[in-house]
């Protein structure tokens, strides 16, 4: 027998070789940063990214990238979304709140040319004309150039939400000459997306240097940026990394920021990292279908009341971890128009059983549908559904769980086919008007089989909220709407999960914003 095959050390030798190669690989890796020069910020996130074209992107990762590359007319400072502040323009709203006048205050594109009113009109009209995901933001709004530095936005009805909407990175201002030269138009015939996926044409603090929807996006500091604060990092790399790897990377110092860790994952973090737990603006809610042909028992107001009183909201918060909270209404606690925490529904087991008895409902059985591949702040809907099932069992309601992939479940939910559904709403813009979708005859209301004018008491409240021109009156109207929704609506607001950001100890200035997650230009060294 050949000696080379009979040596018992064969496996051991191979193992030793592997270890040596691994050690070598660690050495190769450790010198990478010094080779490239400049300050590099590495952010790990689970990509939800389809485009770098502001007029087409409306996904979380796209918003983060858009915020870094393109300036908007208005913006928010840090995580405070209760007050829009000037970015490229100052603003003034007419008394009837139908006209918004924006005056440009400078701004230079990355090619050195100034931002003009023509660029603003082109960029905003393009978003409307593309008929893409963010087009609805400017529905019913007319954009007019007054002079070289003034633009007017006109709405048919009072539009107090418009300043909040204009801060959305999808409404970032493009260099119209450059984009037109690469096939950009204000219609759906626009061909500029491939160009905008390779180059940036904005005035933001960074420019796009590499882009992939699956791997990483690389941003380079824009030397022509004229905004208020010069960014600290020369290069920002956003990598598409799943959460278990995000944890190890940030712990080991391979990345400086991890954006998608759950409360469970951060409990055992080591390596001197910082954990920021903030309340997200996503609201997880239960839907009880009011269409008898779909919902059956869920269309009964007494069943609705029993579910609302039977849920142990504190028990659900335990699952969501530190930073999570119970919204008192459908509008998240971080937005204007939200109800105070004192008005949040509490558990009332006796009341729940009494409601079932009053409705003559003996041992009702329902099916709860949800997407089992959806995570909110690192929390998947599966454990929430299981806990709701157990909680409602205590009052005699049997819940059959019907999970499925979001690709198929979304279809049923949006078609109004859920008897009982567990879903989340992430804000499109931080204004209470975004939550009118939950009312009868509107987008989410119809998904719950809640047809227009199904609740006569709500109609005047909604009318008031839409048409008032004073912020205080408007906020009061939204609170009234939510009280009515809490009393008899087909939605039960459950939790606002936490939003956890883990950063290296060397990093500061990270603040969660519900629109663009984090502003990479605000990140600095501590």
């Amino acid at each position, binding site marked *: 027998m*050949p000696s080379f095959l009979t040596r018992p050390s064969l496996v051991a030798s191979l193992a030793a070789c592997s270890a040596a190669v691994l050690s070598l690989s660690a050495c190769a890796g450790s010198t990478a940063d010094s080779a490239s020069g400049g300050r590099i910020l590495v952010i790990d996130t689970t990509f939800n990214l389809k485009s770098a074209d502001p007029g087409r992107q409306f996904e979380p990762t796209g918003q983060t990238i858009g915020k870094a590359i393109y300036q908007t007319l208005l913006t928010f400072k840090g995580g405070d979304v209760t007050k829009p502040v000037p970015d490229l323009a100052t603003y003034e709203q007419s008394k009837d709140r139908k006209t918004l006048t924006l005056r440009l205050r400078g701004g230079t594109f990355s090619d050195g040319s100034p931002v003009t009113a023509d660029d603003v009109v082109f960029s905003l009209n393009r978003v409307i004309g593309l008929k893409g995901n963010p087009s609805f933001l400017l529905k019913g709004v007319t954009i007019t150039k007054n002079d070289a530095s003034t633009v007017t936005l006109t709405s048919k009805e009072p539009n107090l939400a418009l300043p909040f909407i204009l801060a959305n990175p999808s409404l970032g201002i493009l260099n119209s000459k450059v984009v037109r030269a690469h096939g950009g138009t204000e219609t759906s015939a626009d061909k500029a997306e491939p160009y905008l996926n390779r180059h940036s044409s904005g005035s933001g603090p960074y420019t796009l240097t590499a882009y992939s*929807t699956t791997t990483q996006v690389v941003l380079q500091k824009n030397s022509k940026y004229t905004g208020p604060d010069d960014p600290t990092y020369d290069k920002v790399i956003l990598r598409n990394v799943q959460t278990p790897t995000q944890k190890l990377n940030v712990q080991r110092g391979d990345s400086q920021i991890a954006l998608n860790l759950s409360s469970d994952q951060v409990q055992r973090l080591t390596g001197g990292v910082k954990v920021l737990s903030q309340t997200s603006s996503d609201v997880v809610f239960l839907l009880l279908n009011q269409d008898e042909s779909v919902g059956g028992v869920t269309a009964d107001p007494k069943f609705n009341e029993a579910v609302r009183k039977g849920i142990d909201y504190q028990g659900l918060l335990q699952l969501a971890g530190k930073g999570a909270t119970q919204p008192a209404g459908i509008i998240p606690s971080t937005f204007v128009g939200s109800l105070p925490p004192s008005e949040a529904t509490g558990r009332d087991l006796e009341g729940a059983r009494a409601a079932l008895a009053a409705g003559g409902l003996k041992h009702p059985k329902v099916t709860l549908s949800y997407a089992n591949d959806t995570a909110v702040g690192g929390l998947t809907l599966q454990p929430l559904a299981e806990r709701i099932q157990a909680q409602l069992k205590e009052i005699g309601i049997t819940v059959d769980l019907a999970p499925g992939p979001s690709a198929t479940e979304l279809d049923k939910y949006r078609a109004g086919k859920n008897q009982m559904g567990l879903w989340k709403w992430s804000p499109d813009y931080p204004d209470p008007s975004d939550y009118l979708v939950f009312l009868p005859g509107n987008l989410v209301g119809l998904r719950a089989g809640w047809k227009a004018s199904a609740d006569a008491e709500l109609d005047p409240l909604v009318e008031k909220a839409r048409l008032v021109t004073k912020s205080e009156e408007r906020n009061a109207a939204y609170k009234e709407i939510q009280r009515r929704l809490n009393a008899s609506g087909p939605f039960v607001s459950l939790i606002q999960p936490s939003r956890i950001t883990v950063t290296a100890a060397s990093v500061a200035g990270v603040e969660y914003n519900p629109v663009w997650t984090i502003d990479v230009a605000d990140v600095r060294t501590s």
Partner: protein
Amino acid sequence: MTFVLTNLVPGDPATANLGEQASSDPAAVAEYRRQHGLDQPLPIQYARYLEDLARGDLGQSQQSHQPVLTDLRAAVPATMELAALAILLSLLVGVASGVVSALHRNRLGDHVLRVLSLLFVSMPTFWLALVAFYVFFDQLGWAAGSGRLDPGVTAPANVTGLYTVDAVLAGQWFTFWNAVSHLILPALVLTAHTVGLLTRFTRSAVLEVLSQDYVRSARAKGLPERTVLVHYVLRGALVPVITVAGLAFGALLSGTVLVESIFAWPGLGGYAFRSATTFDLPAVMGVGLVIGTIYLFVNLAVDVLYGVIDPRARVQ
């Protein structure tokens, strides 16, 4: 077949890909359907797909908004680089271990190798990937982090899409070593399962060949043991081993999604998974076509190798 299957799945690509508000806007939905050709009847969609396919156009991905071919040009080499190294290591270690195990039949070395191979075959690859990444990257600091290169390292100019090869072609040795450093751990993880498989198959094939008359005759003729083993035993045992290796290579190319996910490796598995879960039908069909073609070529290569190894299998 991929076209029919992807269209049979319940669900609407417009719903899956448009946002909450846009999916309820008839104008946005109509525009989405027009852009992706979904407003046409299925037979016409299929005819157009075939027409485009004949021109080498696999359509546009609804997720990346790029041609599917562009996406595949990035994803396939990434997986190919990983799978090729994994299968190479597997063949080296698996065949050697199988032979050693067979030659030491029912002795301690054989028992150890059989237990190890059983362990490797039974261990879930995603679990092993997590443990390996935790131990070698996080705890020991021996392995490089996730991805194909360190964050500060620029990818070499794209020639083959294989970073190691492209870095050598460009003479970028630092990039080459960086690419190797990122490749080695995921490749070793993938190797574990295939090594286990090849060890067991090689052992069984070698044992069968060892009992053949021609091996006994070779020994009786006084040929050196090394010659008998390499030219008679191994050659005879390689046919089933090559078959298994071919299938394993195909599986490595198409089934590495979880390992790719843990190591943030932008390969074909992750692309296929993402496309399937978002109803990105052109991408799903593109992936199906690529994997089908790869299997075809792997099987062809295996058939050709049969003839090279075993003269009896040659076509006259």
